[in-house]
């Protein structure tokens, strides 16, 4: 799909929205797999960005992710999304244990001019690969999730946006006493994504 909407010369707003949405899809799946939010046997191996990735095969989870990511893609195209957050909550205590935050800077001028930007998809995908690699590597320092946990996806949007039917307003679900680590960022030259993770300090659990 991405190849159809972006030329060899560069990248359009639509192509950029698709690339970023795709990154979120793979990124979220990676986090859910790495953090053991769903059992490993409910994932299947695929190859993307020239690397091996895990995608869920759980039908309910698949549906939910498709719903969220397709809506997100729309908002990316409209340049009305500011941030996506994956929140991991402990079901026993209702404490938020981890927040994977992706700040999105949209270049709104791309809405006016349809001329493609000069950045190759290959370069962008290389940058995305580094981010996903780093997400995988964070397992080494993040505290083990020992209790049953569930996740939620929060989307920070522009204020004037109309709330879609299946969506509702939420709180930011901030962690009390957290450590924060900034991860790599990537840019399509239209959308810039800054990644970071905040986690509850293990001595406060």
């Amino acid at each position: 799909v991405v190849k159809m909407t972006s030329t060899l010369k560069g990248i359009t707003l639509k192509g950029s929205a698709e690339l970023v949405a795709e990154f979120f899809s793979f990124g979220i799946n990676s986090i859910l797999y790495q953090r053991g939010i769903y059992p490993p046997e409910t994932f299947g191996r695929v190859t993307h960005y020239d690397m091996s990735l895990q995608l869920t095969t759980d039908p309910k989870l698949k549906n939910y992710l498709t719903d969220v990511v397709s809506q997100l893609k729309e908002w990316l195209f409209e340049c009305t999304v500011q941030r996506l957050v994956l929140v991991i909550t402990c079901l026993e205590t209702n404490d938020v244990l981890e927040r994977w935050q992706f700040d999105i800077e949209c270049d709104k001028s791309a809405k006016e001019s349809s001329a493609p930007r000069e950045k190759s998809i290959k370069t962008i995908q290389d940058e995305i690969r580094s981010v996903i690699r780093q997400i995988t590597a964070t397992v080494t320092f993040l505290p083990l999730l020992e209790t049953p946990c569930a996740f939620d996806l929060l989307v920070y949007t522009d204020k004037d946006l109309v709330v879609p039917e299946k969506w509702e307003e939420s709180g930011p679900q901030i962690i009390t006493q957290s450590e924060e680590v900034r991860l790599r960022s990537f840019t399509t030259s239209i959308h810039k994504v800054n990644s970071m993770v905040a986690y509850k300090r293990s001595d406060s659990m």
Partner: protein
Amino acid sequence: RMDLEDDTTILTTLKSFNSFISQSEPPRGAILTAPPTLQSQYKRSFELLEAAEKVQSKTRFLQLDQEKKQMELSHKKARLELEKAASDSARDLEVPTALKQKIEDLEAERQRLEQLNGELEMRLEKHTLQGDFDPAKTRLLHFKMNPTAVAKQQRQQEVDSLQEEVTRLRELVRVVQESGAQDESSVLGLSLSLPPSKEVLELRKQKESSELKNQRLKEVFQKKIQEFRTVCYVLTGYQIDITTANQYRLTSVYAEHMDDSLLFKKGSSGSMQLMETEFSKTLGEMVSLHLHHQKSIPAFLSAVTLDLFSKQTVV
């Protein structure tokens, strides 16, 4: 005070002068009686002149004094003016110093603000990292049926059903207690009469089915074992029984006596050894040939079979 003193001096002089003049006028009745002499008149005029000179000099002194005072005053004024000017110019000279101080103050203030700004930026960064946002510019949304909401809902349902069960059981206990069941056994009896839980029913069913399966397997095994033994007996001519663990008793179909049997024992390595029986004692030659020499149990057994068979057919 000086002026007043001076005025008094002038006044006194003038008074004395005046009195002197009035004295020079001869009293009305005495004019003719005592005519003034020339000498006295001269003396008189001299005295007058002297007095006048005195007044003049006094007046001049006063004038000079006044002039001096005026000069002093103007000096004083000039000095004040100078002092004022000097102080003014001094103040003018102080201006750069004040400015310098001001610059230093502002510099310190700037540094303080810079530091504060740095701190605030760090705090803002931390808040951003933690997920804070400006509600005036940003709206925070999530999918209603998100996995956390679903999981929490399920947990709530579980809790609700457990609570319901607890309430039901509490009520049951209350009823049991009220019915006067004081001793434990009757309470136990009653609790046993309670409908068993789903799990118990399930396990019971499982147990029954596995018992049935076991029974069937046993029957099948029994049948097969029997069949096997019969076949062995018919084909080899020996009935094989297990006496104790690892001991096998072989009875030939052609045995002359019911208890003519051979006893084999299995060693730990799996090898079979013939044990001594009344019957085996009669087979010394065959034991020696087939077991000791040829080391073949089947040959030994066959030899025994043939031997017994030949004895039978002879009879």
